């Protein structure tokens, strides 16, 4: 499966193809609500996951978390089923696109509330520290979230308590319709993080190796209980949510990461043909997974009955 011994190229292509097929299904009315796609952040997702150990690390993500959930190794078909509201999804289709949960794979949860996932990752970090597992808690969040109290407080808290934690800021320059320069008095987020006592790095989300290297340093420091901040420049290739207007203020969607990865495969001796074959095979595999998920039955009364049994109040 996807999570195994695949190259970064294949992993990134897989996410892109997965998202494109989700988009197609969304256009076809097969997704209950709106979906926020990870297209443009594939490299960041895969590079981050590459430095983590899904056995002891836990990542929390934002509303835009399909890619990182997949990169951490959550079952692609179950992720797709969840997004589509289908039986068999990570939470049997009742949680949905903004609430992917695969703690078994080191992906604790994504979130519908901007920034709320960040304190949760501090909790995972606290558990790792308390239980001396060597693990880290990782929060992935956006440039918009960087102005939310939950995020800012947690930067200070992590530094004050010396938590094994990584703050991964995916800066795509936009929060819904609001450009980062409008929302922030000072857009140098690295300095902001340092001012809270975090060790700060930045990375180019189009350059896989550089990105993975920065995350690696960040993770090493975090594992030693010096919490870190890594800002990755990414793009938002399908608007805020799929179907959204093309966003004027956004840096033009680029496939730079794609070309970069191909170049590095070539440098390692792969032929154009091999690269294209890999691309096609991976694409097909991802599309197949999503299509398979789309064939699962829609979640309904039977699944919802499980929730009823989880209710805290038998009376209400």
């Amino acid at each position: 499966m996807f999570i195994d011994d695949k190259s970064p190229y294949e992993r990134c292509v897989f996410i892109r193809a997965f998202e494109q097929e989700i988009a197609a299904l969304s256009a076809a009315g097969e997704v209950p609500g709106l979906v926020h796609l990870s297209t443009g952040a594939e490299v960041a997702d895969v590079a981050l996951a590459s430095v983590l150990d899904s056995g002891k690390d836990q990542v929390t993500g934002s509303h835009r978390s399909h890619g990182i959930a997949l990169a951490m190794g959550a079952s692609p078909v179950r992720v797709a089923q969840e997004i589509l509201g289908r039986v068999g999804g990570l939470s049997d289709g009742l949680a949905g696109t903004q609430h992917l949960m695969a703690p078994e794979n080191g992906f604790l949860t994504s979130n519908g509330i901007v920034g709320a996932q960040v304190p949760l990752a501090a909790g995972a970090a606290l558990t790792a520290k308390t239980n001396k597992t060597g693990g880290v808690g990782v929060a992935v969040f956006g440039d918009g979230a960087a102005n939310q109290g939950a995020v800012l407080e947690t930067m200070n808290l992590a530094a004050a308590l010396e938590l094994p934690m990584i703050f991964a800021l995916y800066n795509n320059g936009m929060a819904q319709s609001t450009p980062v320069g409008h929302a922030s008095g000072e857009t140098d987020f690295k300095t902001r993080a340092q001012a809270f006592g975090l060790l700060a790095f930045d990375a180019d989300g189009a350059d896989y190796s550089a990105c993975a290297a920065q995350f690696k340093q960040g993770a090493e420091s975090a594992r030693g209980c010096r919490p870190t901040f890594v800002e990755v420049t990414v793009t938002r290739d399908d608007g805020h949510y799929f179907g959204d207007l093309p966003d004027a203020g956004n840096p033009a969607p680029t496939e730079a990461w794609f070309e970069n990865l191909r170049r590095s495969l070539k440098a390692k001796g792969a032929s154009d043909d091999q690269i294209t074959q890999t691309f096609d095979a991976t694409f097909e595999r991802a599309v197949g997974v999503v299509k398979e998920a789309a064939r699962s039955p829609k979640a309904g009364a039977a699944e919802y009955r499980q929730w009823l049994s989880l209710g805290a109040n038998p009376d209400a």
Partner: protein
Amino acid sequence: MPEQMMKTSEALNAVLHQAMLDDLTVICIGEDIAENGGVFGVTEGLLSTFGPARVIDTPISETAFVGMAVGSAMTGLKPVVEIMFCDFVGVCLDQIMNQAAKARFLSGGRLDLPLVIRTTMGAGDGSGAMHSASLHGLFSSISGLTVVCPSSPADAAGLLRAALKTKGPVVFIENKNLYDLEGPVPGDCLATPIGVAKRLTEGTDVTIVALGQMVQEASHAAAMLSAAGISAEVLDPRTVKPLDVASIAASVAKTGRLLVVDEGAGFAGFADAVIARVTEEAFSALKAAPRKVCPPDTPVPYAVEAEEIWLPNAADIVAAVQTMMEE
């Protein structure tokens, strides 16, 4: 202006335009409300007409910008601040519950707090557990807040006008599934009075209280019940707080039965408040126990069919009334 057919979102938009034109101290504050015109289009065109000093896009910092709105209302402006979905209120409740709601009291009436907090409610569109809540009951449990939930374009316009004129703070909750609902909106700038219920259908067997998008379900149910020979009176209180207890109690005095339909909390929410107050006022008239049709006590599920089960509908209402008629 003559009466016009308008969507709810258009009706609200028109009132905001007029208010900003009439009163230079009215300003709008929120996320993606300026350039973007609001995620549901309610603030469209305000930026180009009134400029960025009065139509302010904010960072995703609800505590800071709601608090800024509160502080500006304390010092002479009339802010209309938007919290995109009411589910997000958990990140900024202090500024509403302690700072805005208490200021009139703590200042001994020196501050009027002319503040309108616009937000959305409502399930049914596949938005999942954190974009579908209906927290009007929670807001109404806080002393000092006026809480409004319109169910039609005309009421939305009229109540927003009223909210802009009254001492605040007013929490103005728009059901996102009603934005596209079209209806006639009177052209004159009359406010719909806050705290006055509206009767949608007259009946003699049961009083059904509902607001927001539940009004439609209640009205459908009334039609279905009528076909079955049961005469239901549907009341839309429009304002959660102050609640028009008198109108509801008067209706119950006639029908002898009360059913509250609500997509908010089934425990310690709007439904319980109505039942408790009306039971107190109209006890001797009651022929059966007052009942409620509310969602099960879980978050809103994502999958379409599960969400349909969760959300009260006309069939649920009919079933509840039929049970009551047999009691």
